[in-house]
Protein backbone atom coordinates (compact mmCIF):
# COMPACT_ATOMS: atom_id res chain seq x y z
CA UNK A 1 0.00 0.00 0.00
CA UNK A 2 1.72 3.17 -1.17
CA UNK A 3 -1.09 5.68 -0.68
CA UNK A 4 -2.09 5.75 2.98
CA UNK A 5 -3.85 9.14 2.93
CA UNK A 6 -7.37 7.79 3.55
CA UNK A 7 -6.15 5.63 6.44
CA UNK A 8 -4.27 8.58 7.98
CA UNK A 9 -7.32 10.84 7.62
CA UNK A 10 -9.59 8.17 9.10
CA UNK A 11 -7.30 7.65 12.10
CA UNK A 12 -7.08 11.40 12.67
CA UNK A 13 -10.88 11.79 12.64
CA UNK A 14 -11.27 8.89 15.10
CA UNK A 15 -8.57 10.39 17.30
CA UNK A 16 -10.22 13.84 17.43
CA UNK A 17 -13.54 12.19 18.14
CA UNK A 18 -12.10 10.01 20.96
CA UNK A 19 -10.38 13.00 22.55
CA UNK A 20 -13.54 15.15 22.59
CA UNK A 21 -15.91 12.31 23.41
CA UNK A 22 -13.95 10.82 26.31
CA UNK A 23 -13.15 14.28 27.68
CA UNK A 24 -16.89 14.92 27.92
CA UNK A 25 -17.51 11.45 29.39
CA UNK A 26 -14.73 11.88 31.98
CA UNK A 27 -16.03 15.31 33.04
CA UNK A 28 -19.56 13.93 33.44
CA UNK A 29 -18.23 10.95 35.41
CA UNK A 30 -16.23 13.28 37.68
CA UNK A 31 -19.44 15.29 38.28
CA UNK A 32 -21.20 11.97 39.09
CA UNK A 33 -23.69 12.67 36.30
CA UNK A 34 -25.59 9.53 35.21
CA UNK A 35 -24.99 10.40 31.52
CA UNK A 36 -21.27 9.76 32.13
CA UNK A 37 -21.87 6.02 32.49
CA UNK A 38 -24.05 5.91 29.38
CA UNK A 39 -21.52 7.92 27.33
CA UNK A 40 -18.51 5.85 28.40
CA UNK A 41 -20.39 2.60 27.73
CA UNK A 42 -21.37 3.79 24.26
CA UNK A 43 -17.84 5.17 23.72
CA UNK A 44 -16.24 1.74 24.18
CA UNK A 45 -18.63 0.30 21.58
CA UNK A 46 -17.78 3.15 19.17
CA UNK A 47 -14.02 2.59 19.63
CA UNK A 48 -14.37 -1.13 18.88
CA UNK A 49 -16.55 -0.43 15.85
CA UNK A 50 -14.05 2.19 14.64
CA UNK A 51 -11.19 -0.36 14.85
CA UNK A 52 -13.17 -2.90 12.85
CA UNK A 53 -14.04 -0.17 10.28
CA UNK A 54 -10.33 0.67 10.07
CA UNK A 55 -9.84 -2.70 8.35
CA UNK A 56 -12.46 -1.77 5.76
CA UNK A 57 -10.52 1.47 5.13
CA UNK A 58 -7.26 -0.52 4.83
CA UNK A 59 -8.93 -2.91 2.41
CA UNK A 60 -10.11 0.06 0.35
CA UNK A 61 -6.57 1.50 0.28
CA UNK A 62 -5.13 -1.83 -0.89
CA UNK A 63 -7.80 -2.14 -3.59
CA UNK A 64 -7.08 1.43 -4.76
CA UNK A 65 -3.46 0.47 -5.43
CA UNK A 66 -4.46 -2.77 -7.19
CA UNK A 67 -3.34 -5.00 -4.32
CA UNK A 68 -6.41 -7.26 -4.37
CA UNK A 69 -4.75 -10.04 -2.36
CA UNK A 70 -4.20 -7.81 0.67
CA UNK A 71 -7.57 -6.07 0.19
CA UNK A 72 -9.16 -9.49 0.65
CA UNK A 73 -6.81 -10.41 3.52
CA UNK A 74 -7.81 -7.22 5.38
CA UNK A 75 -11.45 -8.28 5.22
CA UNK A 76 -10.50 -11.82 6.27
CA UNK A 77 -8.71 -10.30 9.28
CA UNK A 78 -11.93 -8.44 10.10
CA UNK A 79 -13.85 -11.72 9.99
CA UNK A 80 -11.19 -13.49 12.09
CA UNK A 81 -11.35 -10.78 14.79
CA UNK A 82 -15.15 -10.97 14.94
CA UNK A 83 -15.13 -14.79 14.89
CA UNK A 84 -12.38 -15.12 17.52
CA UNK A 85 -14.20 -12.61 19.74
CA UNK A 86 -17.36 -14.68 19.38
CA UNK A 87 -15.46 -17.90 20.23
CA UNK A 88 -13.82 -16.19 23.21
CA UNK A 89 -17.14 -14.82 24.44
CA UNK A 90 -18.78 -18.24 24.26
CA UNK A 91 -15.90 -20.09 25.97
CA UNK A 92 -15.26 -17.57 28.76
Amino acid at each position, binding site marked *: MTDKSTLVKYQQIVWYFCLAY*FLLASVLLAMKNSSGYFLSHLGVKIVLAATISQLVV*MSHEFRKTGNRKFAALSLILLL*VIVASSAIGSILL
Partner: protein
Amino acid sequence: MGLGGGVIMVPYMTIFLGMDIKDAVPVSMIAIVVGTLSSSTPYLKKSMVDTEQVVIISLFMVIGSVIGSLVSSVISSAVLQIIFSLVTVYAGVMMLVKKGSEKPPIHKDHGARYYVLAGGISLVVGVFAALVGLGGGIFIIPILYLLFGKSIDEARGTSSLTIGFAAAAAAIVYFFNGQLDPTAAAPVILGVAAGGTVGGHLGTGARPIVVKIIFLVIMLYIAYKLGMEGFKNL
Protein backbone atom coordinates in the same frame (compact mmCIF):
# COMPACT_ATOMS: atom_id res chain seq x y z
CA MET B 1 7.98 2.76 21.26
CA GLY B 2 5.32 0.78 19.37
CA LEU B 3 4.71 -1.48 22.36
CA GLY B 4 1.14 -0.50 23.17
CA GLY B 5 1.69 0.56 26.77
CA GLY B 6 0.06 -2.34 28.63
CA VAL B 7 3.40 -3.01 30.35
CA ILE B 8 3.16 0.42 32.00
CA MET B 9 -0.62 0.80 32.26
CA VAL B 10 -1.44 -2.42 34.13
CA PRO B 11 1.13 -1.95 36.95
CA TYR B 12 0.13 1.74 37.23
CA MET B 13 -3.58 0.93 37.57
CA THR B 14 -3.00 -1.89 40.06
CA ILE B 15 -0.35 -0.20 42.21
CA PHE B 16 -1.33 3.50 42.13
CA LEU B 17 -5.08 3.35 41.42
CA GLY B 18 -5.69 0.23 43.53
CA MET B 19 -7.49 -1.62 40.75
CA ASP B 20 -7.69 -5.39 40.70
CA ILE B 21 -5.54 -6.91 37.92
CA LYS B 22 -8.66 -8.59 36.47
CA ASP B 23 -10.22 -5.14 36.02
CA ALA B 24 -7.00 -3.42 34.91
CA VAL B 25 -6.18 -5.78 32.01
CA PRO B 26 -9.48 -5.21 30.10
CA VAL B 27 -9.17 -1.43 30.61
CA SER B 28 -5.60 -1.51 29.32
CA MET B 29 -6.75 -3.49 26.25
CA ILE B 30 -9.31 -0.89 25.15
CA ALA B 31 -6.78 1.87 25.95
CA ILE B 32 -4.21 0.11 23.72
CA VAL B 33 -6.75 0.11 20.87
CA VAL B 34 -7.18 3.89 21.14
CA GLY B 35 -3.45 4.38 21.78
CA THR B 36 -2.48 2.60 18.58
CA LEU B 37 -5.01 4.66 16.59
CA SER B 38 -3.28 7.83 17.76
CA SER B 39 0.36 6.70 17.96
CA SER B 40 0.50 4.93 14.59
CA THR B 41 -0.67 8.00 12.62
CA PRO B 42 2.71 9.81 12.71
CA TYR B 43 4.42 6.54 11.66
CA LEU B 44 1.94 6.13 8.77
CA LYS B 45 2.53 9.72 7.64
CA LYS B 46 6.29 9.12 7.51
CA SER B 47 5.86 5.76 5.67
CA MET B 48 7.30 3.82 8.59
CA VAL B 49 4.50 1.20 8.53
CA ASP B 50 4.52 -1.90 6.33
CA THR B 51 0.73 -2.32 6.05
CA GLU B 52 1.01 -5.68 4.26
CA GLN B 53 2.99 -7.03 7.19
CA VAL B 54 0.45 -5.51 9.60
CA VAL B 55 -2.31 -7.58 7.96
CA ILE B 56 -0.31 -10.85 7.94
CA ILE B 57 0.95 -10.51 11.51
CA SER B 58 -2.42 -9.39 12.90
CA LEU B 59 -4.28 -12.18 11.11
CA PHE B 60 -2.12 -14.96 12.52
CA MET B 61 -1.56 -13.31 15.89
CA VAL B 62 -5.29 -13.08 16.57
CA ILE B 63 -5.70 -16.78 15.67
CA GLY B 64 -2.64 -17.60 17.80
CA SER B 65 -3.93 -15.70 20.80
CA VAL B 66 -7.23 -17.60 20.67
CA ILE B 67 -5.27 -20.90 20.59
CA GLY B 68 -3.07 -19.62 23.44
CA SER B 69 -6.10 -18.70 25.54
CA LEU B 70 -7.65 -22.12 24.92
CA VAL B 71 -4.53 -24.13 25.85
CA SER B 72 -3.52 -21.88 28.75
CA SER B 73 -5.46 -24.05 31.20
CA VAL B 74 -3.49 -27.20 30.28
CA ILE B 75 0.01 -25.69 29.92
CA SER B 76 2.01 -24.48 32.90
CA SER B 77 2.90 -20.86 32.26
CA ALA B 78 5.73 -20.88 34.86
CA VAL B 79 8.31 -22.62 32.65
CA LEU B 80 7.25 -20.53 29.65
CA GLN B 81 7.67 -17.34 31.65
CA ILE B 82 11.23 -18.32 32.60
CA ILE B 83 12.09 -19.33 29.00
CA PHE B 84 10.65 -16.07 27.66
CA SER B 85 12.48 -14.09 30.28
CA LEU B 86 15.76 -15.49 28.89
CA VAL B 87 14.66 -15.04 25.24
CA THR B 88 13.72 -11.42 25.96
CA VAL B 89 17.17 -10.66 27.39
CA TYR B 90 18.82 -12.34 24.37
CA ALA B 91 16.61 -10.44 21.86
CA GLY B 92 17.23 -7.11 23.64
CA VAL B 93 21.01 -7.55 23.54
CA MET B 94 20.94 -8.76 19.91
CA MET B 95 18.95 -5.69 18.89
CA LEU B 96 21.60 -3.46 20.40
CA VAL B 97 24.56 -5.20 18.77
CA LYS B 98 23.05 -6.02 15.35
CA LYS B 99 24.58 -4.16 12.41
CA GLY B 100 22.23 -2.61 9.82
CA SER B 101 24.08 -4.11 6.85
CA GLU B 102 23.41 -7.73 7.82
CA LYS B 103 21.14 -9.63 5.39
CA PRO B 104 17.78 -10.57 6.98
CA PRO B 105 17.03 -14.31 7.27
CA ILE B 106 13.45 -13.75 5.99
CA HIS B 107 12.82 -11.42 3.04
CA LYS B 108 9.91 -10.68 0.68
CA ASP B 109 12.12 -11.86 -2.22
CA HIS B 110 11.73 -15.39 -0.84
CA GLY B 111 8.16 -15.43 -2.24
CA ALA B 112 5.73 -17.93 -0.75
CA ARG B 113 8.28 -19.00 1.88
CA TYR B 114 8.24 -15.46 3.24
CA TYR B 115 4.47 -15.49 3.76
CA VAL B 116 4.49 -18.99 5.29
CA LEU B 117 7.27 -18.02 7.72
CA ALA B 118 5.70 -14.63 8.56
CA GLY B 119 2.34 -16.31 9.22
CA GLY B 120 3.88 -19.15 11.22
CA ILE B 121 5.99 -16.87 13.40
CA SER B 122 3.01 -14.55 14.03
CA LEU B 123 0.88 -17.54 15.02
CA VAL B 124 3.53 -18.67 17.53
CA VAL B 125 3.86 -15.10 18.88
CA GLY B 126 0.08 -14.94 19.37
CA VAL B 127 0.04 -18.29 21.23
CA PHE B 128 2.94 -17.40 23.52
CA ALA B 129 1.81 -13.81 24.13
CA ALA B 130 -1.53 -15.18 25.34
CA LEU B 131 0.20 -17.86 27.45
CA VAL B 132 2.52 -15.45 29.26
CA GLY B 133 -0.14 -12.71 29.46
CA LEU B 134 1.63 -10.02 27.42
CA GLY B 135 0.67 -7.97 24.36
CA GLY B 136 2.57 -8.87 21.23
CA GLY B 137 4.58 -5.65 20.79
CA ILE B 138 7.48 -6.79 22.93
CA PHE B 139 7.90 -9.84 20.66
CA ILE B 140 6.96 -8.28 17.29
CA ILE B 141 9.53 -5.48 17.31
CA PRO B 142 12.59 -7.76 17.81
CA ILE B 143 11.21 -10.25 15.25
CA LEU B 144 10.67 -7.56 12.61
CA TYR B 145 14.08 -6.07 13.31
CA LEU B 146 16.17 -9.23 13.71
CA LEU B 147 14.43 -11.69 11.33
CA PHE B 148 12.68 -9.53 8.73
CA GLY B 149 15.43 -6.93 8.36
CA LYS B 150 13.19 -3.94 9.09
CA SER B 151 14.80 -0.79 10.42
CA ILE B 152 14.08 -0.11 14.09
CA ASP B 153 11.73 2.73 13.06
CA GLU B 154 9.81 0.54 10.59
CA ALA B 155 9.59 -2.24 13.19
CA ARG B 156 8.09 0.16 15.76
CA GLY B 157 5.72 1.72 13.21
CA THR B 158 4.48 -1.66 11.98
CA SER B 159 4.11 -2.94 15.54
CA SER B 160 2.22 0.19 16.65
CA LEU B 161 -0.58 -0.53 14.18
CA THR B 162 -0.52 -4.33 14.53
CA ILE B 163 -1.10 -4.58 18.28
CA GLY B 164 -4.28 -2.50 18.04
CA PHE B 165 -6.07 -5.28 16.15
CA ALA B 166 -4.96 -8.01 18.56
CA ALA B 167 -5.98 -5.82 21.52
CA ALA B 168 -9.36 -5.10 19.87
CA ALA B 169 -10.12 -8.83 19.61
CA ALA B 170 -9.37 -9.25 23.33
CA ALA B 171 -11.27 -6.07 24.29
CA ILE B 172 -14.42 -7.26 22.46
CA VAL B 173 -14.36 -10.50 24.48
CA TYR B 174 -13.86 -8.64 27.79
CA PHE B 175 -16.55 -6.09 26.93
CA PHE B 176 -19.27 -8.55 25.99
CA ASN B 177 -18.50 -10.65 29.08
CA GLY B 178 -18.99 -7.61 31.30
CA GLN B 179 -15.35 -7.64 32.44
CA LEU B 180 -14.56 -4.20 31.00
CA ASP B 181 -15.69 -1.30 33.19
CA PRO B 182 -16.36 1.61 30.78
CA THR B 183 -16.40 4.18 33.62
CA ALA B 184 -12.84 3.19 34.58
CA ALA B 185 -11.82 3.09 30.92
CA ALA B 186 -13.03 6.59 29.92
CA PRO B 187 -10.33 8.65 31.72
CA VAL B 188 -7.62 6.12 30.75
CA ILE B 189 -8.67 6.30 27.08
CA LEU B 190 -8.59 10.11 27.27
CA GLY B 191 -5.03 10.07 28.65
CA VAL B 192 -3.80 7.45 26.19
CA ALA B 193 -5.37 9.26 23.20
CA ALA B 194 -3.51 12.44 24.11
CA GLY B 195 -0.27 10.71 25.16
CA GLY B 196 -0.22 8.34 22.17
CA THR B 197 0.01 11.20 19.69
CA VAL B 198 2.80 12.90 21.63
CA GLY B 199 4.62 9.54 21.85
CA GLY B 200 4.12 8.88 18.14
CA HIS B 201 5.60 12.26 17.16
CA LEU B 202 8.53 11.87 19.57
CA GLY B 203 9.08 8.28 18.42
CA THR B 204 9.30 9.09 14.71
CA GLY B 205 11.97 11.72 15.40
CA ALA B 206 14.03 9.74 17.92
CA ARG B 207 17.55 8.54 17.09
CA PRO B 208 17.70 4.73 16.52
CA ILE B 209 20.43 4.18 19.14
CA VAL B 210 18.37 6.02 21.78
CA VAL B 211 15.34 3.89 20.86
CA LYS B 212 17.41 0.70 21.07
CA ILE B 213 18.73 1.60 24.54
CA ILE B 214 15.24 2.48 25.85
CA PHE B 215 13.92 -0.73 24.31
CA LEU B 216 16.67 -2.79 25.97
CA VAL B 217 15.81 -1.26 29.39
CA ILE B 218 12.09 -2.09 28.89
CA MET B 219 12.95 -5.62 27.73
CA LEU B 220 15.19 -6.21 30.74
CA TYR B 221 12.40 -4.98 33.02
CA ILE B 222 9.89 -7.34 31.38
CA ALA B 223 12.42 -10.21 31.51
CA TYR B 224 12.86 -9.59 35.23
CA LYS B 225 9.08 -9.45 35.85
CA LEU B 226 8.45 -12.59 33.75
CA GLY B 227 11.33 -14.48 35.35
CA MET B 228 10.28 -13.60 38.91
CA GLU B 229 6.66 -14.52 38.18
CA GLY B 230 7.80 -17.81 36.61
CA PHE B 231 9.91 -18.79 39.63
CA LYS B 232 7.04 -17.82 41.96
CA ASN B 233 4.62 -20.04 40.00
CA LEU B 234 6.98 -23.04 39.80
